[in-house]
């Protein structure tokens, strides 16, 4: 059956990715599959079944004519020869995915190290060794930045994917899609956990504030929780975007590209009144974060400043509603 799929894939290579062509391809595959299954049931060997199916398939030119695709087929062939697409094999794709995981790890680690670097001075301040803390902070930042730079090199072997048009065949696209779908569960857990960690990061502050323990400890915990949360989010998103990148290789001029188009993710795009409103909403959380960090570091009242997040959370709803376009449901 894989041979038949491969054959059909080859026949449709270079066809434009229109609904008509997609339909023709799936209908033809269905007919071939039916015929193949029946031949096998009748006791034919796999080779002879494949042979019969392919010999009785016919000629796509006939179809192109009937579907009014003659012009498009020629155009697609023209494009094809202008910029030959580099074919990425299944093995290469597997390599890419392994590589992507490595990249994701270093990227997430880098960001996390930068975030938790600020805990060093706060922590050592508790023990009255603030200077040492500043030094330690730079060690963290250094390690983080190093990790970020390294992750830039990790996928240097794959630069060609950005610079030249590439494509993957249907089987490979299927493999990637399945891998992406099975990763989706892991990703959901990572994102949820990460988001929860970021949201509840100020909870330890309240507890510490309540029991009147050292307030600085609350600050340390905030950054630790946010650091871990961000790590989970960045790590899983980077891997997931790797899968999408592979599936997006095939665009309208290749056939397997349907994999991304056919299962569009529901995107909830909010419409804003105007550019200014959009900017306000986009800058809202970064501004709140800055405000929180500035106030906290200036006052060192970690036990109180977390209230900013509660106020900001409530205010956010009001800001978004005010900035939304009236016709947005």
């Amino acid at each position: 059956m894989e041979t038949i799929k491969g054959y059909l894939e080859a026949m449709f290579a270079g066809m434009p990715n229109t609904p008509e062509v997609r339909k023709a391809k799936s209908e033809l595959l269905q007919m071939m599959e039916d015929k193949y299954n029946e031949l096998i049931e009748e006791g034919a060997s796999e080779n002879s079944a494949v042979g019969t199916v392919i010999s009785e398939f016919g000629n796509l030119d006939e179809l192109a004519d009937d579907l009014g695709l003659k012009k498009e087929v020629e155009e697609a062939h023209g494009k094809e020869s202008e910029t030959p697409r580099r074919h990425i094999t299944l093995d290469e794709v597997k390599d890419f995915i392994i590589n992507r995981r490595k990249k994701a790890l270093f990227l997430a680690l880098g960001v996390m190290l930068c975030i938790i670097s600020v805990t060093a001075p706060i922590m050592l301040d508790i023990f009255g060794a603030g200077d040492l803390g500043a030094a330690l902070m730079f060690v963290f930042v250094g390690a983080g930045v190093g990790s970020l730079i390294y992750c830039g090199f990790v996928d240097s072997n794959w630069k060609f994917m950005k610079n030249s048009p590439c494509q993957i065949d249907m089987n490979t696209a299927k493999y990637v899609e399945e891998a992406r779908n099975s990763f989706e569960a892991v990703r959901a857990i990572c994102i949820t956990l990460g988001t929860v960690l970021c949201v509840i990061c100020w909870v330890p502050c309240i507890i510490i504030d309540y029991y009147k323990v050292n307030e600085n400890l609350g600050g340390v915990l905030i950054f630790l929780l946010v650091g871990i949360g961000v790590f989970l989010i960045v790590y899983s998103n980077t891997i997931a975007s790797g899968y999408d990148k592979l599936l997006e290789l095939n665009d309208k001029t290749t056939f397997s590209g349907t994999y991304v188009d056919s299962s569009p993710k529901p995107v909830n795009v909010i419409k804003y009144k105007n550019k200014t409103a959009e900017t306000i909403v986009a800058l809202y959380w970064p501004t709140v974060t800055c405000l929180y960090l500035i106030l906290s570091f200036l006052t060192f009242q970690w036990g109180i400043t977390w209230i900013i997040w509660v106020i900001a959370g409530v205010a956010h709803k009001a800001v978004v509603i005010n900035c939304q376009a009236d016709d947005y449901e």
Partner: protein
Amino acid sequence: MVQISSDIIRGYNDTMILNILMKGPSYGYQISKEIKTISDEKYVIKETTLYSAFTRIEKNGYIESFVANPDPEGNGKKRTYYRITEAGLEYYKSKCEEWELTKEVVEKFIEENPDSLTLDDN
């Protein structure tokens, strides 16, 4: 071995498909199998020919397609079924008449026993 004239048969693929659909809705492979069986395996329709015929006669309004699941117990695969329309039935009838006429005319030029023929030198 003698083969079917693809030029002639092409004009009658639609007729065969409509004839099969008159017995009830059917799908791609089943129709191609019917054609093979009814023609005593003398005519095997190519998948591309069949599909292009489907799209053409559907565009003309002679057949309608609908998606159905053949066996709910099975793998849940959806299949495209076709059914004949009123216009399709009318078209089928006119094709039958057309064929009768064509056959009648062509047959007047067909010898019963072509093997025995020779060219006389007069």
